[in-house]
Structure formats: structure tokens, C-alpha cells
């Protein structure tokens, strides 16, 4: 083993947002030469905040940074970080699809290859060729980025980050080892593509260091040298995998923590309907396939049952959910609601008509942020707020709308000055409550939930769980897709585990709790 040399170290970083939310609390990590360090944690554990501090997007409230043993100030912008040899490859949006490979590789670096106003294409291409040879990438330099497989795109992005550092750090410190931060690089990749990417990373490790941000445990275990675990902004564990041997389950428990959800489980037990299999089947999915995302997905959903689609990010679970709502369309298979087959290629409004509802945690996508709460709540409930006596035209009754809104606000404990408050001024949790609240009164037969509690605090989370459990108690069936295993344990009667777009196993709630050891 080479001599351990610390490249970068940050100590006691604390960062708060809006003076209240403590995103990072006294976190210290270090990166050594030629290693892959993983930073793992749930959504909202503070991983991305930490990375953004390292590359100069955010400034920490307190803390120290050491670079190659010297104390340095935190970088003020990405360019400063780049000059120190730190670069980041973002989870998405980093690739520019329509550029050719060599154009993308040198994007932003053209100044160094311009002479007399003329771009030296020959020089760029020969350099690109040698870079690719050195890094072992085999691809046609003049193809467009979007034509390449996703893993290749990721590899080129990493190559680009290294090249950026090499060219920005320049002559006098050319021996600097680049530190590349990879933000969830495997999320959109298939399993084969992931292996390809990791082989590539292991190869690059000889001359670079990586910070690998992820929440997919097996790959973290397999490829990283050390692991830092973040939970709720705190560093809860640090393992050197080269020395220690820990199990996946242990790491998982450290990531998830042991928060007390027993009260909610009691509620789950109370809401649970006995002998759910005897209830009528309300939705059956048969051999549903969407090329490149999932295949041969079949399951039944009984009245008042909640089925969870469980699996790592990119396993096709959210695509299944969105296909059921018609946001995207499946290629083949059958979706049967109440004994009636529905068209695969139909828009969400036809699904709403047969009694399907959809709720995602992405409030920015779902809500009309510049509308008052009242209107946001009634948009799916027009049948409830229109005046019935007028047969010819449907007219909204403002009184009915108001009472509907007040009812939902009270039920979900939405904290807002009035029903006329515009949604953008609400807090994240309250926005989410408005978003779920509009379905509360609609009472569809089937609710599809995608990350229903993403990025909100515990209190609001519990309110939403309660509302959902109550809906379930009233006989509404649900399909849940989430990143949080606890959510499945609280809400679901049946958990379908998926991997690479294929169903692997089906658990009951009790079995599932045992599997994830909660």
C-alpha cells in the first residue's frame, strides 16, 4: 500500500439554513490520496450540502479546511475549488445532450485552445484522443453525447472533471491529485452499466481520489475504501473498509437510525384490515413492460390495501407508479381497474376518471404555487364544489370551495394564515400537506404515492402518515414508492421488492420489517 497522504481535510463544519434548519452539525471528513471515500446517508442527511461546501457553492458557518496539509480558506466559488483540484460531477443535468464528445469534453476550456480567434480543432481532438487513451475510454469522438449509453456519458463527465482540474491547476502544481466528487453517479444506470463505471473508477483510482455520494449500500460496500455515514446533519459513523469488516445490515441501520416509529406502527396495526386477501381486487397489473425501465411487472391490489414497490433508485419502481397514473406510458401489458382494462397510452385525466389519484413529494411540480390554498385544493375536486342544481353549465360555488378548504386545512393541521394564502409562501411540509390534502376529499379508489414525505420535518411527516392511514382505513387502496424503508413499514401491507426492473420477491409487512431489521 502506498504511503497514506491526506489530500483534503475539513474539520468541524457547521451549516445552518435560515438560521433554523441545521443542515450540517460539526462534520469532519478527510480524503487521502488514491482512494474512494463514500459519504452515505438518506435524503436530507446533509450529503449534498457538504459537497456543495467543498466545491464552493455554499459557505459554511464555521469549520476549517486543510489542503495538502496547509490550512486554506473555503473556496468561494467552483472555480476556486477547481484550482485546488476539486471538481464535482452532478447527479443529473451535467451532460449537454446535443454536443459532440470532444465539444463536451472541452466545454468552458476553449480559451486555452484559441489562437488568433480561431479554435484549434486539431489540437483539441488529438488531446481528447490522448486523454481517452490514457483513461481507457473507447468511443467515437464525433458522436453526440445523447447517442452514447448513460454509463459512457458518466465516464466522459468524469474525464471532463479530471481534464478541467489538470488544465486549471496548470504548470507549477501539476503533481496535484484531482479529487472528483461523484454525486449519486449510478442513479440512472442499469446494473451492467454500474459495473462498467466502477471498473473505470477503480482504474482511475491510481491517479485520482474520489468522493462517492450515494445511498445504495451494496455498491458503497464493494467499491469504497472508507465510508462516512451522515444522519440528520451529523456524522454518525466512520469505517475503514480496508481494515474493518461490517455487514450491509449494520451500515443500513446506521444510515436509517433508530427513530421511534412505534406509535405509528400501532396506528398501522389499528388501520390494518384483517384478511385483506378476501377483499375484492381493485387493480390488477399484468406483465406491464416499458422498455429500458421495467418488465413483466404483475401484481394485484385489494380494496383498502397498500402495496409498496421497494428497491434501489433506478430499479423502475417510480416508472411503474407513473405508468399507472398515465404520466408516462407503458409499452405492453395490462392494467385492469375494477375489472375494466384501461388503455396504456392514456393521459392522467382518464385515470382520474376511473378513480386513480397521484401524489408526489415534489410540490414544485404538483402545486400551482402562485394560487391560494383554496384553489389548489379544489382543482381535483370540481365535482364537489360545483353547483349541482345547474344542469347545463358547471359553476363553481365559492362557498362550497371555502368550506372544503377549511375542512382539509383543519384535518391536516396546515399552518397558514388563511385559505387565500398563496402556496409559495408556505413551508415545505405545509405545501406537501396541501398537495396530499386535495386527494383527501376526492377519495379516489387508488392512490399512487411517490416519495410522499420527501424533504420535510418529522412533525409534518407524521401528519401526512396519519392522513394516509385514515384514507386507507376508509377503503382506499394505495401504491407506495419511496426511498425510505420506514415508510413502507408504516404504510404497506404488502411490499414488492424490485431490482433492475424485475420483481424479486413479495413480503408481508411483518416479513419486511424483519428483512430490514427494524
Amino acid at each position, binding site marked *: 500500500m502506498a504511503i497514506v497522504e491526506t489530500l483534503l481535510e475539513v474539520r468541524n463544519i457547521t451549516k445552518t439554513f435560515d438560521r433554523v434548519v441545521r443542515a450540517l452539525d460539526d462534520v469532519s471528513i478527510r480524503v487521502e490520496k488514491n482512494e474512494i471515500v463514500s459519504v452515505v446517508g438518506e435524503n436530507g442527511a446533509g450529503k449534498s450540502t457538504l459537497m456543495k461546501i467543498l466545491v464552493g457553492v455554499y459557505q459554511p458557518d464555521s469549520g476549517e479546511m486543510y489542503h495538502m496539509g496547509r490550512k486554506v480558506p473555503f473556496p468561494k466559488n467552483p472555480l476556486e475549488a477547481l484550482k485546488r483540484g476539486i471538481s464535482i460531477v452532478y447527479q443529473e443535468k451535467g451532460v449537454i445532450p446535443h454536443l459532440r464528445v470532444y465539444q463536451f469534453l472541452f466545454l468552458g476550456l476553449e480559451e486555452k485552445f484559441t489562437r488568433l480567434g480561431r479554435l484549434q480543432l486539431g489540437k483539441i481532438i488529438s488531446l481528447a484522443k490522448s486523454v481517452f487513451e490514457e483513461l481507457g475510454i473507447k468511443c467515437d469522438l464525433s458522436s453526440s453525447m445523447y447517442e452514447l449509453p448513460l454509463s459512457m456519458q458518466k465516464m466522459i463527465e468524469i474525464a471532463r472533471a479530471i481534464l478541467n482540474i489538470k488544465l486549471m491547476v496548470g504548470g507549477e502544481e501539476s503533481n496535484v491529485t484531482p479529487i472528483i466528487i461523484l454525486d449519486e453517479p449510478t442513479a440512472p444506470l442499469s446494473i451492467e452499466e454500474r459495473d462498467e463505471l466502477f471498473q473505470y473508477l477503480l482504474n482511475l483510482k491510481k491517479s485520482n481520489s474520489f468522493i462517492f455520494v450515494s445511498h445504495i449500500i451494496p455498491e458503497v460496500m464493494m467499491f469504497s475504501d472508507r465510508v462516512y455515514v451522515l444522519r440528520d446533519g451529523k456524522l454518525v459513523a466512520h469505517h475503514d473498509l480496508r481494515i474493518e469488516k461490517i455487514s450491509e445490515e449494520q451500515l443500513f441501520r446506521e444510515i436509517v437510525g433508530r427513530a421511534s416509529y412505534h406509535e405509528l406502527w400501532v396506528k398501522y396495526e389499528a388501520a390494518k384490515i384483517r384478511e385483506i386477501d378476501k377483499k375484492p381486487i381493485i387493480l390488477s397489473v399484468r406483465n406491464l413492460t416499458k422498455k429500458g425501465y421495467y418488465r413483466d411487472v404483475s401484481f394485484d391490489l385489494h380494496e383498502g390495501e397498500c402495496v409498496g414497490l421497494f428497491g434501489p433508485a433506478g430499479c423502475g419502481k417510480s416508472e411503474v407508479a407513473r405508468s399507472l*397514473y398515465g*404520466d408516462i406510458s407503458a409499452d405492453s401489458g395490462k392494467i385492469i381497474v375494477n375489472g375494466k382494462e384501461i388503455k396504456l397510452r392514456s*393521459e*392522467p*385525466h382518464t*385515470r*382520474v*376518471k376511473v378513480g386513480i*389519484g*397521484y401524489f*408526489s413529494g415534489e410540490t414544485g*411540480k*404538483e*402545486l*400551482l*404555487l*402562485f*394560487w391560494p390554498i383554496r*384553489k389548489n385544493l*379544489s*382543482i*381535483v375536486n*370540481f365535482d364537489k364544489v*360545483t353547483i349541482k342544481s345547474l344542469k347545463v*353549465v*358547471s*359553476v*363553481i360555488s365559492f362557498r362550497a370551495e371555502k368550506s372544503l378548504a377549511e375542512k382539509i386545512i383543519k384535518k391536516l393541521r396546515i399552518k397558514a*394564515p388563511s385559505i387565500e394564502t398563496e402556496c*409559495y409562501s408556505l413551508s415545505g411540509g405545509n405545501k406537501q400537506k396541501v398537495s396530499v390534502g*386535495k386527494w383527501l376529499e376526492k377519495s379516489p379508489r387508488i392512490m399512487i404515492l411517490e416519495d410522499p414525505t420527501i424533504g420535510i420535518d418529522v412533525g409534518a411527516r407524521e401528519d401526512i402518515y396519519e392522513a394516509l392511514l385514515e384514507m386507507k382505513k376508509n377503503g382506499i387502496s394505495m401504491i407506495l414508492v419511496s426511498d425510505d424503508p420506514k415508510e413502507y413499514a408504516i404504510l404497506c401491507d404488502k411490499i414488492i421488492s424490485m431490482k433492475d426492473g424485475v420483481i424479486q420477491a413479495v413480503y408481508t409487512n411483518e416479513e419486511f420489517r424483519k428483512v430490514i431489521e427494524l
Partner: protein
Amino acid sequence: MAQTWFSREWLHRNLNTIIPVTGFILMVIALRITNPYFLASWDSVITLVYGMSWFLIAACGLTLVILMGSFDFSVPSVLKLSAMIFAVLYPSIGFSAILVSVLTGLTFGAVNGTLLARFNIPSFMATLATSMIAEGAAQVISGGYTRMITDPAFRAISTTMILGLPSIFYYAMLIWLISIFITFTTPFGRAVYAIGGNIVGTRLAGINVKKVRIMVFMICSMFASLAGILYASQIQGAHMQVGVLDMIPLFASVVVGGTALTGGIGGVHRTLLGVLIIRWLDSGLSMIAVDLNIRMIVFGAIAIVMTILTIDRRRIKIMK
């Protein structure tokens, strides 16, 4: 949040109401000073009413489209085509020509809406293409000649006096009120605003976005064609210059009323004020012999300034 009624916040929020109202008052005062005949007699009022009524009908349709965040260039062309069809067909088939006219308008609206909703073509591009087709069709059916209709029944549609005001005024008001009613109190109207506000969320909330878009374009073109029919009756015929210079004033009157080009903000109720400002300013300026081209430049500049002021920048991430 402490809210005094006259704070910066309040001012900013109500900018798109304050500007048109003060603008209107200032304009009336200025016109009254520069032109002694402005609003001096009932006849001058009737002249102004004639000038704005058909225009208001077309502007109501355009407002609906802009509320959705789209744009319709074909309004003046469809207006011209409808006027032309009415004038050309009236001698042979009488008032059935109105039906043909309106159906043509609806067809154009359906094509516009379909190009946008089904083929994903930006509405300005789609309607630019259909407006050329409408212009061409008007040229084909008229042969480029002016059609005069001397039949008093033809003229009576819009010029019958009821309570001292011409009937076209009542039609315009009726259409205006119906549009307000639709946008404010029906689920359809809500959907129009919702599409302008957040089209992705609207689709996920289970609203048939494609249908609403097509219907709004059809309503817009139908209003344009009604405006064309009434205008033809008002001027006793139709010619190729009808509507040629109307796009800028139409657009100006919608945004001057306070409807934001990005959609979701404003409303048909505001368009009346916008139409009054633009049309009265137009007639006021032409009375003091301001060149037509200069008037157009003035309207264009007003439109752009109002667009800048009314656009809600909080919700724009990327502006193309």
C-alpha cells in the same frame, strides 16, 4: 407579515392594476385637454363605441389564449377571413353566411390548438403559419377586391340602436361578460388559469390539458370570427385591409389591461380597460393627426413596457 395597505409589497403586487387604471385616467384627461371634441357629445361617444366593440370581442379571445401562456397570431387574419366570407357569401345565401364564417373560425382554432396540443409546436409558430393560410384564403375568395354590401339588413346587425347605443356594443358586452363568467366560475376557466400557471401540475391533477388548450384556441378563433362578422356589418362590407394593422393594438390592449404574457395572471375583465385605453388613444391620436405608423410604434412600445412590468419573474427559470 405586516400588511399596510400602501406598502412597497402592496404596490408591487397590484402593479398590473394600478398602471392601467392611472393610465386610463391620465389618458382621458390628456385627450380631453388636447381635443375639445373628445367625449363632448353623444355622437362622439357612439363613434368611440363603434371603434372598440368589435375590437373588444377579438381581444377577449386573445386574452384567454394569453392566460394559458400561449399566443395567437391568427386573430386578425381569422377576423379578416370571416369578414370576407360573410361579405362574399351574404348576397347568395343571406345570414347563413354567418354560420359558414363562424365554422371557418372554429376550424382555424381547432387547427391551431391541435398543432400546439398534439404536435407540440409552439403556438406562435403554429398560429403564424395558420395566419398566413387565413390571409391567403381571404385573398383567394375575394380575389383581392373590396366587397361592398348595401343591403340595410346586413348593416342592421351591428348598428341597430338600442337605448341610444348600437347593438354591436351589447354583443361585445355580452361576450365580455360571458368570458368573465367562464374564466372565474367554471372548472374550465380554472383550468385555463392552471395551465398558464403550471402545466405539469395541471396535467397531474387530472385535467385534460390537450382538450382545454384546443377548446381555448377554438373559442379565441370563434370570437375573432364574430368580431369579423360584426365589423363587416359595421363597415358595410369587407376589404383586404381589414385586420392588417390589428395585431399590435390587440396584443397591446391585452397586456395593458394587466394580463401577463407568461400566463396565469390577469383576466378577461382587465381587457375591457386595455381596449378602452388603446382604442381611445388611437382615435385621440388620429384626431390630432398623428401618423398611423407612429401610432403603431407607440402601441408597440406600450405593449413591450407593459409586458416587462407584468411578467411574473418569480416563476421563470429559463426564458426562451
